[in-house]
């Protein structure tokens, strides 16, 4: 009986050898912690270049607890090849540690690569054994190598600065949307949606990659990059760009609830108003076989940031609200006309019609001919604490 137990135990223990165990063990210092990946592809030579930005752990604190001094916080490795598979096997020609993608925070794609086809790129990200597709994807306006070699002020690791800027912009503006992760891109591209990804631009021609020089420079606008504008994607390809003003209407009409401050001209005066979407209602009805999409925007306003004009009476508030209702409806309608001319279904009208009339013979055509009615309903909730801004008039 004891022998049978022993034999059973032995067999069980042998099975443990099959488990992902000891042989899978990796010490932390055998890993190259990838913080950011950049993908570029040259349409002329068909050559793919991948940039891996690897964190240098010693730049922060060392084993002895002292600062790593003038070491760069990240190292950028550039590997070229004719396919992503080839790159995967040639990376170790240069990299002495095992690629570890689990802590990658940002994926950058060059504009020229985005204009070709992004299928291979998203597949490449998904393919990584320990990779994540929950990282934001940004398109680089200009040379990718410049952004990949820029050391940013304040946040030592450039991917941290992008990640945190994107987060702050989502919360404090209507310039960046929430659905910009690689997984969102895949999901929405597969649904044939048209999407917008943020654009990032390097701010100097010759970036300094020397961290010592960088940290001594007081001007944070030098040697930095900026998130500005958006890239429109359709069927895994970049179809065009939106500027910051257009991005506001895009995100507002798509129901993003970030706060955004914009200046409007009201009765000949400039007024800075903070907008926040409270509710959006989109309904479709048919008028002589043509679809009409009615979008109603309920917005909260605040004039807390205005120094030009502060409404002081109920009458003034109403006049301001009415005027803003008009401006918002007009400008967003103008935005819609612009995207319709370019053939971008950025408001997902197609999807909306398909949901409502699944049996319609030609949804695409109906969507193109759809009429749009936009109605804004604003309510001024906060007027700020200053009734009379300092004007120097005594």
């Amino acid at each position: 009986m004891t022998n049978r137990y022993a034999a059973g135990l032995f067999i069980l223990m042998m099975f443990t050898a099959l488990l992902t165990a000891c042989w899978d063990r990796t010490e932390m210092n055998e890993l190259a912690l990838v913080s950011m990946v950049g993908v570029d592809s040259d349409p002329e030579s068909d050559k793919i270049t991948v940039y891996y930005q690897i964190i240098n752990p010693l730049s922060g604190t060392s084993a002895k607890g002292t600062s790593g001094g003038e070491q760069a916080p990240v190292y950028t490795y550039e590997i070229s090849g004719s396919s992503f598979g080839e790159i995967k096997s040639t990376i170790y020609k240069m990299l002495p540690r095992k690629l570890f993608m689990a802590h990658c925070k940002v994926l950058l794609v060059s504009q020229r690569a985005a204009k070709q086809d992004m299928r291979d790129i998203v597949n490449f990200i998904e393919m990584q054994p320990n990779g994540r597709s929950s990282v934001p994807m940004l398109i680089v306006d200009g040379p990718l190598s410049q952004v990949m070699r820029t050391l940013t002020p304040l946040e030592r690791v450039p991917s941290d600065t992008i990640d945190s800027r994107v987060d702050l912009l989502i919360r404090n503006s209507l310039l960046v949307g929430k659905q910009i992760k690689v997984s969102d891109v895949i999901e929405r591209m597969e649904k044939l949606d048209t999407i917008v990804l943020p654009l990032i631009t390097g701010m100097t021609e010759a970036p300094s990659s020397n961290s010592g020089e960088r940290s001594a420079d007081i001007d944070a606008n030098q040697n930095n990059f900026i998130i500005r504008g958006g890239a429109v994607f359709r069927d895994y390809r970049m179809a065009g760009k939106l500027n910051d003003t257009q991005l506001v209407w895009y995100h507002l009409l798509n129901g993003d609830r970030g706060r955004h401050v914009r200046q409007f001209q009201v009765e000949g005066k400039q007024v800075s108003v903070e907008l926040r979407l409270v509710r959006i209602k989109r309904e479709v009805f048919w008028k002589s076989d043509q679809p009409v999409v009615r979008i109603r925007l309920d917005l909260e306003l605040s004039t807390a940031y205005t120094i030009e004009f502060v409404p002081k009476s109920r009458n003034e508030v109403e006049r301001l609200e009415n005027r803003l209702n008009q401006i918002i409806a007009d400008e967003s309608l103008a935005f819609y006309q612009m995207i319709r001319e370019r053939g971008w279904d950025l408001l997902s009208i197609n999807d909306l019609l398909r949901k409502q009339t699944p049996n319609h013979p030609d949804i695409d055509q109906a969507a193109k001919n759809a009429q749009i009615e936009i109605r804004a309903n604003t309510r001024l909730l906060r007027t700020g604490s200053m009734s009379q801004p300092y004007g120097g008039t005594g």
Partner: protein
Amino acid sequence: MARKKQNQSIKNDFFGDIQSALGLPPDLVCRSLFVQGEQTVQCVYLESMVNKKTIDEYILKSFTENTFSEGEAPLSAESGFLREFSFSDPYEQLREHAVKALLAGHCALTDFSRERVCLINVTESKQRSIEEPKSESTIRGPHEGFTESILTNVGLVRKRIRNPFLRFDKMNIGNQTGTTLLMVYMENLAPESLVREVRGRLSAIRTDSVLESAYVEEFIQDRIWSPFPTLTNTERPDMVAAQLLDGKVAVMVDGTPNVLLAPMTFFEFFSSPEDYYQRADIATFIRWIRLISFFTAVFVPSLYVAATTFHQELIPTRLLISLSAQREGVPFPAIFEVLLMEVVFEIIREAGLRMPRAVGQALSIVGAIVLGQAAVEAGLISAAIVIVVAITGITNFVVPVYSFGMSQRLLRFSFVLLAGFMGLFGILCGALFLVAHLVSLKSFGVPYFTPASPSIGTDWKDVLVRLPRPWLDPNGLPGYIRNMKRKR
């Protein structure tokens, strides 16, 4: 004729026979009283174990004043104060009884005029005074601790429970040592089945010696192959009194201040008598600290090993960078680092116990800090390991029962090995085995993991939280004790 011969041999050989039976001990004293040249009384005793004042003033003096008689004995024969044998009893038996009595601190008084041998209890054992127990000191609450004298210990318990139902069942265990054991319980509270079980296990002990209660514990515990103690031991009379009032059974062993208590459940090791000397909210908070400390002491080193060698994706990026920076240049794998430091820490702790008190404390603290610091400076280990080992070392002392802390130490090492070989999967397997073991364990018929499994709703009032006294049942016994009583 034969009787006269026996009288003669008692007169001439009795002392000599006792002397040779005990191997000519240096403390054996024989005093004789002579009246008109005739020896009338012979008093034999072991000087190291008796109160000489009692012998002189009450026993020998009574003979000179002719007042010592059976009827005037200070105590009755049943008490063991006075046992009487006649010269006509078998000589071998008489001698055997006398030798045993001398070793127990009696004196053997041979009264030739009345032809009898009296064995009189004149014990005076050497003992230290009542002090605060060193391993179980307390801020608020009684500072008395048990001593090595079982009678003193009985007194300390009686002082707290003045109740006629308090029972002390006496037994002698150990063929060579003949140690006195007392099984203590409240007859009206302790379940009969429990008392029977403890008595049965105690009387089944076959051993030569019992020098400490741990000897007894090993014989009566439920399972040998388990890291968890199924009995607890304490030096505090208030703890014993509290547990007796909960219907439990205590075992006192002569010669040791550690009293055993049974049965014990897993969660009871996290409570201490001090919980009831504090406000309920504070007691609950401290109980949670103990639970957290238990998990920290058992799991933190293994989680560190698992996360840093198998699951780096679980660590937040900045922490990973910092840990990775600390490990740059460290030549050993994380599991080896942890094991090395844990073993070193255990060595320092053990050395600290053995060292003279003045040096011990300095050695344990300075040794750990200096050694850890030096090892980090030398690049042998990473700084995070020192923190991990220090945290686990400190949390290990939080649990109120020392023996339970010891089991945490064993578990910690096994979990580190599992984590080193199989990562979090190994820890999970180990934890499942541990839970399976805990629910299968019993302490004197009581499921060890109660009130969690089997669940006893009313007992939860005093497990993870300690409810205020008015909300607790004033006559409340633990649920499992109530169940045992009901089964009867």
